[in-house]
């Protein structure tokens, strides 16, 4: 028993005092309560289903949703990544691996700068989709997109290489929603500490 009701700790205003009162004759029949319950379930029977049929219909996501990564190409179709390793360094989950290589004379149309990533892998099981790689990238080469990482039955299928990550030449992936002019200006702003 609580000696003084003033000292009672109230965590929420929803708490109800449980009464142990004896039920009336009608209540003890239980039938009204049963019909009440059946009415509730029947009302749900005619309600709109909340199911989203996943592969065909997708739940709308935010403009800056952090999903599957993309390695961008520049406007001439050359890979932007220079294998500087800042993304791998910034990755808290250590999901990114890369091997740098030197661009040959005949590869001018493939890579934007003299150094490029001959191997670039992200382990999607390690990745926590924090977006630090995107923030760290000085070349606007890696971005997170609103695409999902599909399920697999083998663990090694989750290690995504350049064949999946680099955007196809004929179907560029739009990142304009997250890379707005304001964001770009902030990234290049020399007065900011991250550019000093």
């Amino acid at each position: 028993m609580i000696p003084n009701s003033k000292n009672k700790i109230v965590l929420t205003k929803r708490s109800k005092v449980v009464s142990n009162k004896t039920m009336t004759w009608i209540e003890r029949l239980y039938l009204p309560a049963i019909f009440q319950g059946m009415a509730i379930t029947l009302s749900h029977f005619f309600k709109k289903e909340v199911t989203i049929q996943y592969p065909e219909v997708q739940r709308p996501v935010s403009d800056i949703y952090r999903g599957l990564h993309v390695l961008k190409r520049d406007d001439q179709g050359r890979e932007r990544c220079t294998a500087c390793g800042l993304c791998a360094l910034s990755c808290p989950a250590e999901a990114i691996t890369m091997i740098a290589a030197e661009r040959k004379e005949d590869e001018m149309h493939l890579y934007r700068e003299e150094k490029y990533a001959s191997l670039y892998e992200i382990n999607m099981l390690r990745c926590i989709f924090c977006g630090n790689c995107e923030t760290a990238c000085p070349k606007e080469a890696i971005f997170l997109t609103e695409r999902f990482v599909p399920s697999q039955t083998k663990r090694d299928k989750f290690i995504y290489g350049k064949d999946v990550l680099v955007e196809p030449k004929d179907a560029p992936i739009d990142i304009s929603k997250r890379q707005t002019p304001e964001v770009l200006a902030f990234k290049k702003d020399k007065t900011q500490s991250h550019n000093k």
Partner: protein
Amino acid sequence: MDIQFVLYKLALAGIILLVSLVIAMYATLAERKVAGFFQDRLGPNRAGTFGLLQPVADGVKLFMKEEFMPATADKFLYLLGPCLTMLVALLSSAVIPWGKSINIGGVDYSLQVADINIGVLYVFAVVSIGVYGVMIGGWASNNKYALMGAVRAASQMISYELAMSMSIVTIVMTTGSLSLNEIVAQQPGIHWNVWTQPIGFLVFTICVFAECNRAPFDLPECETELIGGYHTEYSSMKLGFYLFSEYINMFIASAMISSLYFGGYNFPFINDLGLSQNVLTLLGTGIFFCKIGVFIFLFMWIRWTLPRFRYDQLMRFGWKTLLPLAIANVILTGFFHLLFKN
């Protein structure tokens, strides 16, 4: 008895068997669909349009599962359990009048396999055997959960059979016949037994729920306590038989409720339509199946609404509420019958 008659009855029995199986098959789909709708979901809809091939997929899945038998199980009884359950579930459809009669070439063909004059008794006898399927299956598995489920099933079915029989006694008193055909024939138009026997109807329906082991009386197989109850040790199609016979039971029980209390194939304005006998019979059969559908829906509706009884509540409810209620109903009906009918 001529050969034509025997052939007709055999064909009719075959058709009814087939129809029962198909309806039970699609009742499994309906159950999952209805459950989905009650929970604001869609239910299965990937196998065929509207999930129409789902029962086939389920069947194939059950057939592909490993056929497992516990090493300590009694082989013969272990096999007998599901067979008996299935057999008994299908047996009682023989006496249900599915329709009036069809006239072909001046000969009336009744849409009832066996119009035996003790139809109601026959149904009770068959239903009582139903408990053996569950009991034998649970006992032969040699598993504590299975045995617990079997014991529960046996006590539950025996307890609720009493009240069920008592509620039918009133029908027999007012009708003056044990033949199901006669009982249905005495409810023309909208003069259904449910208007004169509302208490009997309520008691009968509740008891039928218990007899079919359906929620809220699904104690014999309650997954949460007994991990499947009497069919814990069953796998593959033997488990399928148990699960499937539940839906056949549901179908037969709905047919019994409809024919005992809701006029079976009778429907209002049956004689004002001016149709030929054959068309009327087929229409009546259609109406009968609609009524059955409504009651199958009721079974599912209750299942997805009410929680399961506790064991002591189940027993108290059966013995201390339903049985006295049914007996009082018999006495009251007898009293009014004597007072007003003579």
